[in-house]
Every structure is written in C-alpha cells, then in structure tokens.
C-alpha cells in the first residue's frame, strides 16, 4: 500500500501523537464523521481511529493523515489499552487461490457474505468501552462524535478554526 501522507504537526506533541484527538475524516466511506484517534501505525504511517462504533458507525479503521482535519478537541483517554489492535489486525484475509475448475465456475457467482471475525468484534468492543468511560457524563461529546461535519452556506473553511 502506498505510504500515507506525512503527519501534521497539530497531531503530535513531545510524547508522540495526541491520542484521543477528535479528527474529522475528509474522504472515504466515512467522510464528514468525527472520530477518535488511537494510534499511528509506524509501518504505513496511517492513523488508527475508531468512531466509537456505537456512536457513529465508524469501526476500528486506518486512515490517511492527509485526509483528516485534526480538531483541537481532545478526549483524555489516559493509558488506553490498545493491545487488541495487533500488528496484523488490518491485514486482508488471504483468499484461497484454488485453481481448480470449481473455483473457476464459482467466480461468476455472488460473493458469499463474510462474517466479521469475533476477534475483531471483541477488539472493537474492548476499545470502545474505554472511550465510552472516558466520555461518560459528557453528553455533548457523545452527540458531537455522532454528528457529521459539513460546510454550510456562509462558512469560510480557510478562516475556520477547528
């Protein structure tokens, strides 16, 4: 996969990237969504984020830092346990390359629905739980994360502060 864009300085501080920053995704399936930053993948340079899933439907996902606006809002996650997100968490499942005739004829058929592995669901739940406890009591934050960013008639994006 091509190397991701360089990380903006607004996302980093002396101790590394600011975990817990709220980001606005600008491109892709979840464009406009506000998500929580978890970590930066060294290998690819991408950012690992989560909705949390229950709030806005964004799962644990990698995101290119160039296609993101880092807001000044930060959730204090303390020492969040990101162990469930392993190194190969986002690896594409290896499709069986059977060269048999069966496979050849099967190609045209509709793709079978692949169920998300339980391990991923568990990881999602574990991480989101930590975030939910961090924002507990802050009703505004939950609704904020659930809202979608868009430009309105009189908005001047170059003058807006995030």
């Amino acid at each position: 996969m091509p190397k991701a864009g360089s990380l903006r300085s607004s996302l980093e501080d002396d101790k590394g990237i600011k975990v817990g920053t709220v980001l606005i995704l600008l491109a892709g399936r979840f464009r406009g969504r506000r998500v929580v930053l978890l970590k930066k993948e060294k290998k690819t340079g991408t950012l690992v984020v989560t909705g949390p899933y229950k709030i806005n439907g964004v799962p644990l996902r990698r995101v290119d830092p160039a296609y993101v606006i880092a807001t000044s809002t930060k959730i204090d996650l303390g020492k969040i346990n990101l162990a469930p997100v392993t190194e190969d968490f986002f690896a594409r499942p290896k499709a069986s390359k059977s060269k048999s005739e069966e496979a050849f004829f099967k190609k045209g058929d509709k793709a079978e629905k692949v169920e998300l592995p339980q391990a991923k669901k568990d990881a999602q739940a574990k991480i989101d739980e930590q975030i939910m406890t961090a924002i507990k009591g802050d009703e505004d934050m939950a609704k904020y994360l659930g809202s979608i960013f868009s430009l309105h008639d009189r908005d001047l994006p170059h003058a807006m502060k995030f």
Partner: protein
Amino acid sequence: MPSTNEWRFIEIGRLCLITKGKYEGKVATIVDVVDQNRVLLDSPALENEKRWTGVPRHVVTMKDIEPTPIKTSIQRGLKLTGLKKALEEQKTVARWGELAWAKKLVVRDARTNISDFDRFRVDRARRVRAFTLRKKLADRLQKDGKDRKAKKVFVSA
C-alpha cells in the same frame, strides 16, 4: 455620531483602535503628531490587558486608526515607562474595555476562534432553543383550540 462636545480629537493621549496592519485590533495611545496625516502611536504591554495592548512605538497614518472616546492625560512624546504608568493610573484600557464597542470586538474574536466542538455546541443550543419555543407555541395554540399543526423541527444530534 458623537455630538460636538464628544468629538474624538486626534490629540496627544487619545486612545485609538488600530484597524489595519500588523497590530490590527489593538489599541494604542497617540504620543505625538507627525504631520497632517500621521501620528506616533504606542501601546506598552499591560499584564491584564494583553488582548488590547502590546504595540511598539511607531508612526501610523490616520487612515489605519480609529479614534476612541477614551483619552489619557500625558505630555507629548512621553517615553515608555512614563506612558505605562500614566495608562495604569488613569485606567485607560480598562475604560476602553467597558465600552460596548470593545465588548463587541471581543465577541467577534470568540466567534472567529471558535473550536469545532464549540461550534457544534452552539449550533445544538440554537436548535434546541428554537424547538422548545416552537413546541411551547404549538402546545399553547392547541390548548386554545386553534389546533394548528406544530411545524416539525429536526433537532437530532
């Protein structure tokens, strides 16, 4: 418009708002007059008034400033320490801060520098308020038997 006895003269000690240039938005005192078009301004940084002060002594054209109703009694060409003392004693910047003009500028600042989260909160507060008012009106109308349909208001998020 201010009346004749409230004219804001360009004079030594007049507090002016800088409307253009690097120090736009700051407030400074006229320390000397250069000629028909230019004045010497200075605004020593005051601890409690960081938003308004902190302009080095320099010459400025009248076009780029706006005189305020506030004035300090100082001698022409007063140097920095003397000027700072006079401003503090006469509470010049504090008096400026009391004006509706200054307060409006502060509000404008807040609106420009609002964070994304706060923008959302303000937005939401407005929508909730609008909804509450309309609902109250609709309930009242219904109670009075006028029974007009309350306009459906989308408040979510």
